[in-house]
């Protein structure tokens, strides 16, 4: 179409571009073929179709599922759908996208939603229901949730009396990462009360260490690790009932309970004797990304790092995450050894279609069969599904998290900032927490967040 197609430069450019494309295209075909054959071999050997007969024959039907879960965590998800696909004949189309949280709203509003979405926050479930495109979960799914989950979980996605989404995975946030070998060499013991944790930190200071390290940098979401710290402390300095009231704003955000909790966090994070091991002073917390916040444990320049179970994935390949390995975590203790509040988070499966195959797959995902299938396949994943056998969890940190979640004495509470209105939970709370780390006092911080709460 151009007048001088014989120009050597254009020809060279075209040739270069096309050959690069061909090389990658061939590489893609080769790679794809290998993956497929390997995975079907693995799953075909261990399939028992009995639990799937109730879903009937779904041959030729397709269910699309859209999530924010991308590589490498997506592979076990896709693998865990294989038994369902092989036994019912349905095919599941998985789409992972890191911009899920904004794109799902765009797609729901434009009328182009997926069949199912894995939504990581109850607040977002509410927004999706408000678009009018989400459909309520079928009775079978609700029955599974009643059977397998603590009843608190069902309330997170029950909106105006209708139940929208079964929980899927969960993560435990009340964990402190440490180095088992350091503890052994220095004779430290894992604390069982909050006072013991403080005593342990002081002992480490006396040994000439800076015990804690932290990082709260996370792009637009900078500050969220502090909100987790604070929620954990509200659960410990007050009690779970007060926590619920605080999250639902039936007591003010800046009341005495919250002030006590944030000051308790300050006792650790704003104490320049305690922080920031291996990274700098108190202010370096704000400039360190949360991914890097706990890495100094490996260098021995930091001893303790409070972060959720998913942090295991942050340690470089080859790090042994186990009770006798390079790093491990212990439960962030309660006020005394008898109370066990657990802060956590999780995902929910919300449907935008009520075709039989979508409902069948939704029900499958809420079952104990799926939870156990998934547990065997993945590492770095747990669920609060009571039908989950902790022995199926393959790696030690998952087993620890699973045990904490399924402990009947533990009181589970969902991450508060995920439930608060977006203006607070994913805006003011994060920003003011960052200000607080860089020097703002507790009262101003809490007053500013209270002011941001939508009337």
């Amino acid at each position: 179409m151009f007048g001088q197609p014989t120009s050597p430069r254009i020809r060279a450019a075209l040739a270069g571009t096309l050959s690069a494309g061909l090389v990658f295209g061939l590489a893609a075909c080769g790679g794809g073929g290998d993956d497929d054959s390997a995975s079907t071999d693995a799953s075909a050997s261990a399939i028992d179709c009995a639990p799937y007969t109730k879903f009937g024959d779904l041959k030729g039907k397709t269910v699309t599922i859209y999530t924010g879960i991308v590589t490498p965590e997506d592979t076990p998800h896709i693998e865990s759908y294989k038994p369902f696909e092989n036994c019912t004949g349905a095919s599941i189309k998985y789409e992972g996208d890191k911009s899920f949280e904004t794109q799902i709203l765009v797609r729901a509003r434009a009328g182009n939603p997926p069949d199912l979405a894995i939504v990581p926050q109850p607040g977002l479930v509410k927004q999706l229901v408000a678009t009018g495109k989400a459909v309520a979960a079928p009775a079978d799914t609700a029955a599974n949730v009643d059977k397998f989950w603590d009843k608190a979980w069902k309330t997170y996605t029950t909106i105006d009396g209708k139940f929208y989404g079964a929980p899927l995975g969960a993560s435990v946030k009340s964990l402190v990462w440490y180095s088992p070998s350091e503890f052994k060499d220095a004779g430290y013991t894992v604390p069982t009360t909050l006072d013991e944790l403080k005593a342990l930190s002081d002992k480490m200071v006396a040994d000439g260490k800076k015990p804690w390290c932290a990082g709260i940098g996370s792009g637009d979401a900078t500050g969220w690790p502090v909100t987790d710290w604070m929620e954990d402390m509200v659960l410990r300095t007050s009690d779970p009932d007060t926590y619920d009231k605080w999250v639902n704003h039936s007591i003010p955000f800046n009341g005495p309970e919250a002030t006590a909790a944030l000051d308790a966090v300050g006792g650790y994070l704003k104490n320049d004797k305690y922080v920031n091991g291996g990274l700098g002073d108190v202010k370096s917390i704000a400039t360190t990304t949360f991914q890097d916040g706990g890495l100094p444990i490996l260098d021995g320049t930091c001893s303790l790092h409070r972060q959720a179970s998913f942090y295991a994935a942050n340690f470089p390949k080859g790090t042994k995450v186990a009770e006798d390995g390079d790093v491990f975590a212990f439960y962030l203790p309660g006020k005394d050894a008898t109370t066990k509040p657990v802060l956590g988070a999780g995902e929910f499966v919300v449907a935008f279609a009520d075709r039989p195959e979508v409902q069948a797959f939704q029900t499958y995902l809420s079952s104990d069969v799926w939870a156990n299938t998934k547990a065997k396949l993945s590492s770095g994943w747990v669920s609060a599904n009571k039908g989950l056998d902790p022995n199926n969890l393959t790696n030690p940190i998952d087993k620890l998290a699973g045990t904490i979640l399924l402990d009947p004495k533990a009181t589970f509470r969902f991450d508060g900032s995920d439930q608060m209105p977006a203006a607070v939970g994913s805006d003011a709370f994060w920003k003011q927490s960052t200000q607080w780390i860089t020097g703002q006092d507790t009262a101003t911080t809490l007053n500013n967040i209270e002011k941001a709460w939508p009337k």
Partner: protein
Amino acid sequence: MTAATPVTTTPPLVADKPSASKIAKKRLSSPWASLAAIVLAVLWTLPTFGLLVSSFRPERAIKTTGWWSFFSNPTLTLDNYRGVFGEDGGVNLASFFVNSLIICIPSVLIPVSLAALAAYAFAWMNFPGKNILFLVIFALQIVPLQVTLIPLLEIFVNIQLTGTFWTLWLSHSTFALPLAIYLLHNFMREIPSGLIEAARVDGAGHVSIFFKVLLPLLTPALAAFGIFQFLWVWNDLLVALVFAGGGDEVAPITLQLANLSGTRGTAWQLLSAGAFVSIIVPVTVFLLLQRYFVRGLLAGSVKG
């Protein structure tokens, strides 16, 4: 006029008043200007160079130290490149690379061919409402593409195009057309009308004038616009995010690059290698066709 007069008077004139281009040449090639150009070039290239060095460093080194520490402790690895080609079960950029090419080529050809025809009509044909229509197209450049995302997606949903390449081809073409028509129109107006009239006298109709007279002259403008459009589409993330929804079959490389670091951003050592894979094509296109860039930059600036 005698021939001797200019010969005797012109040399001193040139010596006193050098032409503007000579002044510019002299000033631009002075040592200070060269120094400034070199400093700018180094500053501009340094981050890319750092990215290149980073892409060959081991994971732990990337996560703990800056790329410049490579020079005191050089360790090279191809692990990051293996990682972006799906060696450890992660993303394989190769298939998305092909998707990007499939998206880019029609997204360049459609607006270029439509805009060339439209520009011809606006430049050399008379029809009622021509000026108003041209003004409207010109004004469309002001509409930010973000405001059109949801309405456009609604249209695609209604005509059941979602999950296909058509959504991307059509939306990229739509967003490119106003500027393309405006640029090519200005370029066509610069062509002397005598040329068109001569063709008409020889019995050429609009079709043969367009293909036989104008198209050969338009090549630099078409090529320049094509390059710009190609780079824009190749590097686009926003349009792809919104319209490529529907699975990996239609996702371009930029979308996977955004997902490369993993659900919680833990695998960001792969980003530098991924970035280098994705810039192969733009860099190739730029290096081989760079002479068209300057012409392209000038094409729209001259009054038509």
